[in-house]
């Protein structure tokens, strides 16, 4: 019938046609809303004007208190202009809804934001990052962005997308991942098994976290002992994570903002790293191991080793996150390693202090990690 139809006039020439059959890849609209907050806001974003705006990704199970945390931050008088992005698709990255708190606590103003649905492939930045950049361009400057993800999201892929090369001079950068955990239900959630041996999201969310907000500690029946027990359990999964206890997500915002967990600069993080004990996992699927070595390493060999470890797989284990410092042959600078899934960078940072013992210290967070295998393979890095 379509074949022999002559030129016909469509039925509804002037009424707007509904934009039905939307598929997830069609331009994803989002909403922006806005609340004011107090203060001059100028102080918020740290040192320079060119300093990129940090993104804090907030993960956690439904009911853990993510929304309470976001509302707390939106309503708190902290003098920062904060945009909140709700990503309700989980892995499907789209700006769903954004809210802005400019520091004084006020009504939310909603606005639609269209995700710049770019051709992802030949552009180095994921369209989600481009959309965030557009959001920054269109509005007054923010001091910080909160990205709230769905309950069952694996933070890994999103973290990898947001960890943009410094070279791109993006006005946004991934600051840290904060996971909100319900202290009452954590044990239960960790015990939940997934089909065909998949890792449950409670583990993943803790494994990728830079900060765990251990919420509802006041509601734990076993008191302090049980809370300490929970903390030990969290640290077994992620030996680097900073744990902050809270009730109804009342936290010092310093613990949430400007952690700089993805910046290869001397930081509090690096000092923590230097102090971390050797550790191993025995009975856990997801856990942290770390070791140190006193031999100097060869940078090219280290790169080869990391490539093998992170890109070639084949060790029956999976690395989610790595951090490390390296004593590199021929350099007086401490090198710092950061890895998220298959992305990594190793860059020189501060120089070794005269009284400091030069060494290499590496932390792995992942699944089915075997310390002996890793130690064995690391020997390839030693400079001769």
């Amino acid at each position, binding site marked *: 019938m379509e074949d022999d139809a002559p030129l016909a006039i469509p039925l509804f020439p002037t009424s707007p046609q509904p934009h039905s059959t939307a598929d997830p890849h069609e331009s994803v609209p989002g909403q922006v809303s806005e609340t004011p907050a107090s203060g001059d806001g100028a102080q918020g974003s740290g040192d320079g004007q060119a300093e990129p705006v940090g993104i804090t990704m907030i993960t956690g199970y439904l009911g853990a208190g993510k929304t309470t945390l976001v509302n707390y931050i939106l309503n708190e008088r902290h003098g920062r202009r904060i945009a909140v992005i709700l990503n309700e698709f989980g892995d499907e990255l789209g700006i769903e809804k954004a809210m802005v708190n400019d520091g004084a606590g006020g009504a939310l103003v909603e606005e639609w934001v269209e995700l710049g649905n770019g051709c992802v492939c030949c552009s*180095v930045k994921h369209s989600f990052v481009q959309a965030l950049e557009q959001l920054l361009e269109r509005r007054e400057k923010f001091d910080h962005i909160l990205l709230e993800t769905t309950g069952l999201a694996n933070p890994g892929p999103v973290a990898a997308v947001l960890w943009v090369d410094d070279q791109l001079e993006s006005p946004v950068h991934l600051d840290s991942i904060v996971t909100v955990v319900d202290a009452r239900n954590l044990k239960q959630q960790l015990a939940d098994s997934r089909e065909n041996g998949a890792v449950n999201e409670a583990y993943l969310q803790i494994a990728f976290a830079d900060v765990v907000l251990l919420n509802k500690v006041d509601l734990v029946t076993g008191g302090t002992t049980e809370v300490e027990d929970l903390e030990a359990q969290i640290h077994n999964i992620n030996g680097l994570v900073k744990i902050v206890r809270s009730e109804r997500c009342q936290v010092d915002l310093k613990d949430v903002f400007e952690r700089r967990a993805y910046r290869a600069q001397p930081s509090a993080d690096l000092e923590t790293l230097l102090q971390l004990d050797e550790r191993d996992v025995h009975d856990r699927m997801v856990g942290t191991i770390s070791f140190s070595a006193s031999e100097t390493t060869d940078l090219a060999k280290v790169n080869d080793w990391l490539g093998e470890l992170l890109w070639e797989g084949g060790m029956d284990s999976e690395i989610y996150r790595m951090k490390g410092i390296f004593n590199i042959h021929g350099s007086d600078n401490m090198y710092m390693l950061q890895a998220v899934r298959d992305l990594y960078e190793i860059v020189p940072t501060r120089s070794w202090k005269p009284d400091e013992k030069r060494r290499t210290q590496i932390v792995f967070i992942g699944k089915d990690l075997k310390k002996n295998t890793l130690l064995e393979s690391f020997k390839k890095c030693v400079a001769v």
Partner: protein
Amino acid sequence: MNGDGDHELGHVACVRCSKPARLQCPKCLELKLPRVNASFCSQECFKESWSSHKLVHTSLSHKETGELNGVQDPHAAALAQGWMYCLRKGQSRSPQLPTFDWTGPLRAYPISPRRLVPDQIPRPDWASTGRPHQEISSEWQNSVEIKSPAQIAKLRETCRVGREILDLAARAIKPGVTTDEIDRIVHEATIAAGGYPSPLNYHFFPKSCCTSVNEIICHGIPDARPLEDGDIVNVDVTVYLNGCHGDLNETFFVGKVDKASENLVRSTYECLEKAIALVKPGVRYREVGEVISRHASLNGLSVVKSYCGHGIGELFHCAPNIPHYARNKAVGVMKAGQVFTIEPMINAGIWKDRMWPDGWTAVTADGKRSAQFEHTLLVTETGVEVLTARLPTSPDVFPWLTR
């Protein structure tokens, strides 16, 4: 039935999907607007296009012959024939030049109505939908495919055809020729070879190749602007044939160009040559950017960072992503059987890019010139095979190759 309609059937493409159009917008008819922008293959396409299409009515209702606010549009003749300015990544058109703080002397020109691809030519999914669904959901976005000998044979053939088409475009370049004319040549040659021009309707890109003049870095849309003596113009061709894509581009001189432009184009050519020389199994993808970046800085030039090389094959764009700048975090090590492009974009001034209101055209932020060269490459057991390499028949357009 309608004689006029029958006559036009073979010539007018659906604004949305490029199939032959069979319906037209009644509002446009009433306003006597050009039919090329008002034709649709089906009620579905018309419906889907309505939200962007209807803008044509309001913006055109106060102009008939290119006169806007009493000022004669310099492209009145083109506009009267249904040529329009591209907007929203190709999803809408406007008879008015959008306002923009243009970074250099170049301006957007109206683009011609969409060109048709005959029904019998196999095409990728985006030809009708504008979205490369298959590509987006492919496993090859996350890991790099090792091509089979059969796939490689097909790619080799497709890439050679792509090369021949680019060579045809190269021969047509001279002052006075419009980039739309280049597009027509590329479009028709692709079809004649039995191929589909991959860029056409890819994420709604409106044309069959990219033509990037002077300060345009990449993704320039072929339009009504005649090339001028002293311009440089990059033509980026991708052909879909044998079920796979072959992608290449070169930057050409229009007439006599100044020394600085010649140096820019030549250095860019060398950047690609040096990157190719590096390719062999075991090399890390992040090395590519180091080599390109080094050669560009040696020549006082900068490397565009926002666009990168990409895997290619049955998909137009897939893993790996290959940045052209130094200190990148590209993933992976090259392995025999992998196929990808390297396509450095090198700027005379700063590296930063801006986007024109058409949503595609990337220009230098400082308005200075930019050049690019691209090949599709196969990693072999011992090194590299340039699948889109120049042929003995390729025209002599680069002085440094004739010596």
